[in-house]
């Protein structure tokens, strides 16, 4: 494989990760926290109505997890395509 083709593959994979992670980001915050919140409020988790919990707690936890998943995926991808900084 040429260097050029390698990099294209890297970028494509990166965009793929981004679209998956950002879909989750959108679904949890805008979906569960806002658009579906009135419906989710029919369900309860302990003392929390579920829509309210996603809006004021759950979405923030998910944001943190998403960033760390991204970091893990990208570090792996950097190594696989040989663009990681350690080898420089």
């Amino acid at each position, binding site marked *: 494989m040429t260097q050029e083709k390698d990099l294209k593959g890297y970028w494509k994979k990166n965009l793929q990760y981004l679209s998956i992670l950002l879909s989750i980001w959108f679904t949890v915050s805008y979906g569960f926290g806002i658009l579906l919140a009135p419906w989710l409020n029919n369900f309860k988790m302990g*003392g929390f109505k579920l829509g309210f919990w996603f809006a004021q707690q759950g979405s*923030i936890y998910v944001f943190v997890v998403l960033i760390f998943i991204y970091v893990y995926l990208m570090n792996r991808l950097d190594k696989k395509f040989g663009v990681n900084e350690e080898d420089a």
Partner: protein
Amino acid sequence: MDVQVWTYILVGVTFTLYIGIAIWSRAGSTSEFYIAEGAVNPLTNGMATAADWMSAASFLSMAGLISFMGYDGTVYLMGWTGGYVLLALLLAPYLRKFGKFTVPDFIGDRYYSNTARTVAVICALIVSFTYVAGQMRGVGLVFSKFLEVDIFWGVIIGMAIVFFYAVLGGMKGITYTQVAQYCVLIFAFMVPAFFISMQLTGSPIPQIGFGSTVTDGSGMYLLDKLDQLHTELGFAEYTSGTKSMQDVFFITVALMVGTAGLPHVIVRFFTVPKVKDARISVGYALIFIAILYTTAPAIAVFARTNLIETVSEQPYEEMPPWFSTWEETALLNWVDKNEDGIINYAPGAAIVGAPDIIRDGLDIRRGSNNQVMISNEVTANQNELYVDRDIMVLANPEIAGLPAWVAALVAAGGLAAALSTAAGLLLVISTSVSHDLIKKQFNKDISDKAELRYARIAAAVAVVVAGYFGINPPGFVAQVVAIAFGLAAASFFPAIILGIFYKKMNKQGALAGMIAGLIFTLAYIIYFKIAFPELNIPENWWFGISPEGIGTFGMLINLVVALSVRSFYPDPPEDVQEMVEGIRYPR
């Protein structure tokens, strides 16, 4: 020891610490001054970012705001955290790879245009100045409430401290003081939260506590109880809120995108050594931020419940001592509309404007129940209670009956939050002037030493200007936060994203987009917030979007204009396209 003595001790110790750090980490070159030589450990940078980000508003006002907004407070909680996902995935790693000093640097180089750079500098300056004025005001307020120092002297002391470490240390000094300030502010925020959660629900962890049952033996969940209290008094349910769904949606987008586009936040990710570090550093930053942001809604619920249970339908004479203390500061007031001596709390404002205490000479005039009398016009509704939002955090330790040192801790924490954010903003202002204007536009051959001197002078001037606005706040200071986020969302964010992800975006498209987004957003906010505040009601808004949420619309306009204008002009030059290619790969 009383609160005031404790406050002097804690504020004195923390300020000495900040100054010590500043002396230890003086900057010697522009690279040290602008980006701490790009040698900051990612964990350290994450902590500094968290302090940089969490301002006096996050620390002092947010929990109080949420406690009055209920579910609607979600816009701040999600809006001011969700942007970090965008920052980590779409901005930070690429801008780190780009490897220059400022956001206008990127805009100017990527769009091969000094005009674009200038537009970016102007946005950066407006955003930072509006923001920094609020911080200096916060410093002044904490001083005046806790130490009975005049606001003027409070701001002057705050200015002197920031001046010392921002002007001397630049980014390097700021980074390490911010780490110390984060520790102070998070400790100060969490301690009262632990205590109050324990008292109300028996669970020491506030995030769990506010979803637990109350300890009064009824076995009721706290949130159910609060919803019930709200309904009884005629308020909307706490967990449902009153804003329309589209407004909540638009405000949240504007705040998230605005966060990701704020220059003082972005620039923090120029300070780490590698692309990899930039990514993980955003993750650390968000963890540190999330600790406060997931606690704030719990504090909001505790404070709201405590407030209603303590005051509603109770005789004024039986109020605890804190009630009259805060009445005297004009942050709390009771107007006995039906003259029954009982505090009736209901929806709507009790009085017109903020309380204006009547004084006879130096003495406060008292009513028949010994309440503080005010000269404001009363409204026609049933509500007799005026409560300032800020009181919910400031008075929380007293309301819950916590020891004096906890209240003093809140003062030191509020100062840490205000000073750390102010320093980060001052750095953006000074860099914009010395680097983006003087070095890049007027005098390209300037030596590093001379540039550093200009950076220090600019920082010094900015401190003075910020202080001036802190002492004499323009009437619309509370409103301008909407401007800062709206502008960042409508100008920087789309231009940077297109610059990274759309290689063929040319300067004409980007410039047209930025200017269109900027003018539209500014015009809408100024129209409703400054020019005709009386028209600022949902019926008049476009598509039901409030001025706070209009940045989202501005961002869409920016994108549409940029993409359409782009197609009429040639692609960017080959070397620019190569540069874009280059920032996409860590190596």
